[in-house]
């Protein structure tokens, strides 16, 4: 019974199919088991097969030349090659047929080495029979192949970087250095983010402001970077290569020439977030003395709207937001982190004034001048305690869940080294200060970090170790005690002794929390992990990319990192943007879903089945006076998984080059009895 089982609804080829079928001996690897000549002979009798050949090795230059010649001279327009596994030489042969002028997707590779001759060497008859069926399946599929082109999306050579902390700055600079324009959007009026709030940077003991200013200078001096401060993304649509973005920018509120005058005249104050609420600042402000831009800005959120009295006249401050519309090919998220804010009463925080966070301690230190003693809340600090893992490494069932019902089970990675670095710095500046360090595990993992730990030990920082389920307690000391606070801990370094440590100050090494960016995350349709940080597509395969194509991650928006790690992540994200946009267009493989609009009746089953956001939508068309709803695929968002194919009642949607009809044809060929093959019913 000859092969005549092709499904009728395959895409019809515009020209008669002329097949060339090539069975490779692979230098005996296939030929010693499979009788390649017999395979060729049987396949050669099949309809549409113009030529069926064998060769010791089709992957050799000579072998490829035979195929190219057949395409040119015999008008072969579909090529089937039976050889090694496709992962080895499929691309080789695609290139070969392309050289001969054939569309590379009119080629079908059949693996008969790894999946036939090598596994059935004890059954050469069976192996030959299998080769015939596999080749017949290849032929059946090849008949239904259609020429395909890679999907090319024009890509705007501009990247949007959201967040101008150290990661955003770095990412913007590195993208711009690849010849791609960048719009850098920052919510606050000043650049630099959290790094500006640090005292000194481990492990090099550098001045963070110097690091930051070098970077800010490079960014602002770069001709391809546009910086928008006091700005937020307020609208977003589109996909990789063509995101349409609305950015809303608030007014700075003051002009360069009148700024100082207005700043002086401003009397309204608000807690200064730069000092983590320890101090007050005016609502017209600079985040810190050398902040960039140097012009002060109005804090619209806290400004009470009342006019300022300047030299006898009344000046009204007005926010006139401007909306920019821009197109970006890719988006980098560098939205950063917030330090964990302990709950009221957690380790006495908020109840006992001598309990502060580590970031607050760093700000306190920054304001103590050289030679001055360390004081807090009116009294000198002679003994202090550092408590690690506050808001990190929390255990379900032991720690109280946060507002969203979660505990922060993750490690914040930087706090151990940051705490010890602070301890060492404190011991250097205030040699008489006693420091107690309460930890569960010291995680000084980074290059040069273990040295800081050693330094802390040798400079007589006293370590106490607690178990994660028996955290220390902080209580106010009875009135009249020498020190106002007592830290109570069950210390495993002294074999479980209960120790009361009287101190003047407690600093909580708080972990990192993801920034609140719900609006942005929803707009971008990006996912977050169980830790609520932004989730990468895959930690190893695509560590700085998000599942949504064209969106990359830079820095602590993704999870806790130190400066060096943030910079690396930002640069890596920039490299991904450069790969994506460098050519001015994005090229994607053509293996995406494709709708046959003649068959589609708009049931929408495919839209429901689709797991990719925005890959299939139902759109309304006007035709012959009536309205029609049809599925439309956005190839940029389609991964070609085929979830839509199986659910369509009309078989109106297919993944290109992997169509259902092709599979049916292949299955028929495998299931069929083929004349000339042993075991077939003749």
């Amino acid at each position: 019974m000859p092969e005549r089982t092709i499904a009728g609804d395959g895409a019809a080829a515009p020209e008669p199919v002329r097949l060339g079928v090539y069975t490779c001996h692979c230098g005996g690897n296939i030929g010693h088991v499979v009788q390649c000549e017999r395979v060729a002979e049987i396949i050669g009798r099949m309809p549409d097969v113009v030529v069926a050949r064998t060769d010791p090795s089709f992957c050799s230059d000579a072998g490829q030349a035979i195929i190219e010649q057949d395409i040119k001279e015999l008008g072969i327009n579909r090529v089937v090659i039976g050889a090694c596994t496709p992962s080895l030489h499929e691309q080789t042969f695609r290139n070969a047929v392309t050289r001969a002028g054939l569309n590379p997707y009119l080629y079908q590779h059949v693996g008969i080495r790894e999946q036939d001759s090598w596994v059935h060497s004890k059954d050469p008859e069976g192996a030959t029979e299998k080769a015939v069926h596999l080749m017949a399946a290849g032929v059946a599929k090849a008949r239904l192949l259609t020429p395909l082109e890679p999907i090319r999306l024009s890509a705007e050579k501009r990247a949007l970087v959201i967040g101008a902390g150290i990661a955003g700055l770095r990412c913007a600079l590195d993208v711009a250095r690849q010849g791609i324009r960048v719009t850098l959007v920052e919510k606050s009026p000043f650049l630099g983010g959290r790094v500006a709030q640090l005292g000194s940077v481990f492990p090099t003991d550098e001045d963070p402001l110097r690091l930051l200013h070098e970077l800010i200078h490079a960014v602002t001096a770069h001709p391809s970077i546009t910086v928008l401060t006091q700005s937020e993304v307020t609208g977003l649509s589109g996909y990789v290569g063509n995101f349409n973005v609305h950015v809303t920018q608030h007014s700075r509120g003051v002009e360069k020439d009148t700024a100082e005058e207005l700043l002086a005249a401003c009397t309204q104050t608000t807690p200064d977030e730069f000092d983590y609420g320890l101090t007050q600042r005016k609502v017209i402000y600079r985040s810190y003395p050398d902040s960039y831009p140097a012009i002060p800005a109005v804090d619209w959120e806290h400004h009470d709207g009342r006019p300022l009295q300047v030299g006898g006249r009344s000046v009204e401050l007005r926010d006139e937001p401007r909306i920019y519309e821009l197109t970006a090919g890719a988006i980098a998220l560098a939205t950063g982190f917030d330090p964990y804010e302990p709950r009221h009463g957690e380790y006495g925080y908020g109840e006992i004034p001598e309990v502060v966070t580590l970031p607050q301690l760093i700000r306190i230190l920054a304001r103590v001048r050289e030679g001055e003693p360390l004081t807090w809340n009116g009294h000198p600090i002679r003994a202090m305690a550092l408590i690690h893992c506050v808001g990190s490494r929390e255990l379900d069932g032991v720690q109280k869940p946060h507002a969203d019902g979660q505990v922060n089970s993750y490690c914040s990675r930087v706090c151990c080294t940051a705490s010890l670095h602070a301890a060492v710095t404190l011991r250097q500046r205030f040699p008489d200060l006693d420091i107690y360090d309460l930890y569960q595990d010291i995680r000084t993992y980074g290059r040069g970090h273990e040295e800081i730990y050693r330094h802390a030990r040798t400079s007589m920082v006293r370590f106490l170790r607690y178990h994660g389920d028996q955290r220390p307690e902080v209580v106010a000391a009875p009135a009249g005690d020498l020190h106002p606070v007592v830290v109570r801990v069950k210390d495993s370094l002294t074999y479980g002794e209960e120790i009361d440590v009287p101190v003047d100050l407690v600093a909580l090494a708080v972990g990192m929390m993801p920034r609140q960016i719900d609006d942005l995350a929803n707009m971008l349709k990006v996912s977050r992990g169980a830790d609520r940080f932004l989730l990468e597509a895959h930690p190893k395969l695509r560590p700085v990319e998000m599942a949504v194509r064209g969106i990359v991650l830079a820095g602590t928006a993704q999870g806790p990192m130190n400066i060096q790690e943030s910079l690396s992540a930002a640069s890596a994200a920039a490299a991904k943007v450069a790969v994506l946009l460098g050519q001015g267009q994005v090229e994607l493989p053509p293996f995406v879903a494709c709708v046959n609009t003649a068959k589609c009746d708009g049931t929408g089953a495919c839209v429901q089945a689709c797991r990719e956001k925005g890959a299939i939508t139902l759109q309304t068309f006007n035709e012959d006076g009536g309205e029609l709803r049809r599925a439309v695929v956005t190839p940029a968002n389609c991964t070609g998984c085929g979830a839509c194919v199986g659910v369509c009642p009309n078989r109106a949607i297919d993944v290109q080059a992997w169509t259902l009809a092709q599979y049916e044809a292949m299955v028929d060929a495998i299931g069929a009895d083929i004349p000339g093959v042993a075991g077939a019913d003749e």
Partner: protein
Amino acid sequence: MAENDRTKQPKILVLATLAGGYAGADSAGQAHADYPANTYVLPVMCPVMFPPQFFLRAFTRGIDGIIVMYSGTDSPYNVEADGTAALIDRTYSLMKEHRIDTRRLRLAAICTVCVKPFLKEVTQMAELLKGLGFVKDELAAPA
């Protein structure tokens, strides 16, 4: 199975994800492992693309056993693990309706270096089919 009298064997179709089972079958080849020759592996992007009718059709066109090798849930290429499992369940119901032994269809998680699990699946199915025989006989059997 090197019998000289080559009688017709039941045919096993393996639908294997390109990134998982197909690569696993390649690994079996690279290890020069040995399994029954009546096994035909076709690469798929993700088996979720097939409607249950596809399997039914295959059983009526000369395929006697089908193993769907998807990448499972622990694979980085996990596209539609849940969807595939649900699809197989739906197919089982359809097979029952048509009185086809549901053991003829199996779902297995196979990755790139799963040589042993691959061989196990294939050999088990081959053994099973020895007992079950051809689908066409099962379909022809009186109710």
